[in-house]
């Protein structure tokens, strides 16, 4: 299979690359090394540009006003958008817009009016409440938050952890157990408004991403009406699961973008830096590190584009997406690590983006399903239905 971009894809890649180089990177020189947001006026100015480029709302389906481009092209662009300091968790600082939560597209008309459209207009932000203290990788078994039937609605009790943005969101979606006996067929997805009585954002959890934090949620006799059920009762897990598979492709793309940027820095530095009378680039030890970078990047790119291509053609891509996420996050971590090694002391400083990438790339092996779970997904595929 040939994953070389066609003429139009290449022009879009060049376009986004230039945007990153001319608009994003110069602003980063003036930002805190851990910043994940631009100044509001810069953000607004750049959004005008991405709108003129016809690329605003890059992840919004075309029928909702997003650009009409397929998932392979989106993946190629996601690789470009990540190639700057904040690129892993804040590609282009959100100036290409966000789709909000994928699940909201499956809402009914009433819910779309109240949540989806305001989100697409940028008026509302949402959080995704799945993971609980009892575990995130196996939500079907781990979800202990309960929802019990009362007064034409549901009463939620329980907690969530590592939830991003819940303290700044106007609403979120929360998964809770509505039938204790049914395992994954007993989970329902609710839309929860901020400020609902009994819903508390309890504690801010700091992580390796020092400017960013996650929250802990608590539900104490938190009543929501039937109008807030997203999809069908006891079928919430399908809603979560589809997102988790699809989300692995852009997640991998972000890792590849940062790996490319780190590798380019390492190549440039190796050609400039002399030690003991010769360039680093002439040392076999360094050459082999660069070759290993190349191997990690190329394989991640190939696997990720294969997953995207299968998704584009409507074929099953669960295994491909798992492999892509696994290889891109693990390989990306190795590439950044080698780039730091080649840079020596400079690689540890906050003058360069490498140390931020190093911290953030570590999270990528856990976020969006850890490496072990991705391997489990692939193992199930290899070994057949007996393990399902």
């Amino acid at each position: 299979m040939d994953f070389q971009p066609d003429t139009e894809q290449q022009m879009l890649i060049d376009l986004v690359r230039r945007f990153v180089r001319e608009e994003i990177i110069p602003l980063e020189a003036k930002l805190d090394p851990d910043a994940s947001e631009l100044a509001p006026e810069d953000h607004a100015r750049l959004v005008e540009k991405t709108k003129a480029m016809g690329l605003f709302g890059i992840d919004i389906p075309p029928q909702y006003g997003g650009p009409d481009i397929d998932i392979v092209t989106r993946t190629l662009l996601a690789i470009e958008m990540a190639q700057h300091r904040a690129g892993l968790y804040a590609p282009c600082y959100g100036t290409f817009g966000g789709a909000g939560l994928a699940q909201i597209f499956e809402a009914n008309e009433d819910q779309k009016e109240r949540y989806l459209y305001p989100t697409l207009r940028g008026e509302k932000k949402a959080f995704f409440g799945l993971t609980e203290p009892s575990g995130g990788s196996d939500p079907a078994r781990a979800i202990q938050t309960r929802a019990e039937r009362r007064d034409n609605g549901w009463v939620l009790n329980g907690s969530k952890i590592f939830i991003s943005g819940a303290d700044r969101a106007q609403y979120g979606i929360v998964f809770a157990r509505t039938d204790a006996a049914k395992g994954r067929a007993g989970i329902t997805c609710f839309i929860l408004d901020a400020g609902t009585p009994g819903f508390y954002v309890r504690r801010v959890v700091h992580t390796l991403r020092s400017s960013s934090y996650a929250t802990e949620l608590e539900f104490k006799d938190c009543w929501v009406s039937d109008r807030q059920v997203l999809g069908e009762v006891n079928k919430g897990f399908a809603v979560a699961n589809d997102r988790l598979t699809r989300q692995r492709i852009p997640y991998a793309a972000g890792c590849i973008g940062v790996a490319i940027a780190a590798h380019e820095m390492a190549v440039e530095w190796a050609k400039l830096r002399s030690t003991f009378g010769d360039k680093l680039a002439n040392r076999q030890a360094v050459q082999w590190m660069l070759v290993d970078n190349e191997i990690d990047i190329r394989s991640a790119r190939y696997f990720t584009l294969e997953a995207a291509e299968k998704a584009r053609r409507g074929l099953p891509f669960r295994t491909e997406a798992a492999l892509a996420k696994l290889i891109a996050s693990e390989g990306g971590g190795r590439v950044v690590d080698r780039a730091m090694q080649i840079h020596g002391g400079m690689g540890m400083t906050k003058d360069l983006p490498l140390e931020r990438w190093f911290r953030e790339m570590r999270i990528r092996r856990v976020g969006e399903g850890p490496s072990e779970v991705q391997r489990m997904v692939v193992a199930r595929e290899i070994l057949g239905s007996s393990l399902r």
Partner: protein
Amino acid sequence: MKILVPVKRVVDYNVKVRVKSDGSGIETAGVKMSMNPFDEIAVEEAVRLKEKGVATEIVAVSMGVTQCSETIRTALAMGADRGILVESDVELQPLAVAKLLKVIADKEQPKLIILGKQAIDDDMSATGQMLAAFLGWPQGTFASKVLIEGDKITVTREVDGGLETVELSLPAIVTTDLRLNEPRYASLPNIMKARKKPIENLKPADLGVDPAPRLTVLKVNEPPKRQAGKKVASVAELVDKLRNEAKVI
């Protein structure tokens, strides 16, 4: 009004150019190529004139290897209407390009030709002027402002010591300076539309021009390495060094 915009494919301005080991030229194998930045400004100006209703059609022309069609596609994605590619394996120098453009201009009859003031690869700054001479048209070079009223075009030129304003009768040649405008980003809809816009394929022979180079490049050298700076202890030492070492005062 039809506008002709010649665009050149050059080494991308972000690439660190490297001299070939035999000194015969610049390494271009595997190097990222893009539209000459001054030509982007030319395309942008033409598109703005079209948006204002002054121009009706923009024709982008590029000359050289087959891949110059990519440069034309870039112009089409910015808003040009159609392209002409003059394909040649022979290196095209400004004289040959100007001769070829003269024939195309005779055929296309544009009212205005906007070119970059120079290409960032060889910095010759010659094609626009030569073309004006071949056509016998007036020229407004190094334009930082362009205003068209009826059959007249007013061009503001950045010259040493200030701004010079010239008025030309159309048809005319304009070459663009850096401050004329800020080229837009291409857009997704325009990139998709560009796919359907036609590009005509020609060879120098079709235009009756012998493109053979008239200049021979003897040798290309890396610029000399910049010397490290020096710290001075006092103003007196600084003045002494400026006078006796640097010999600038």
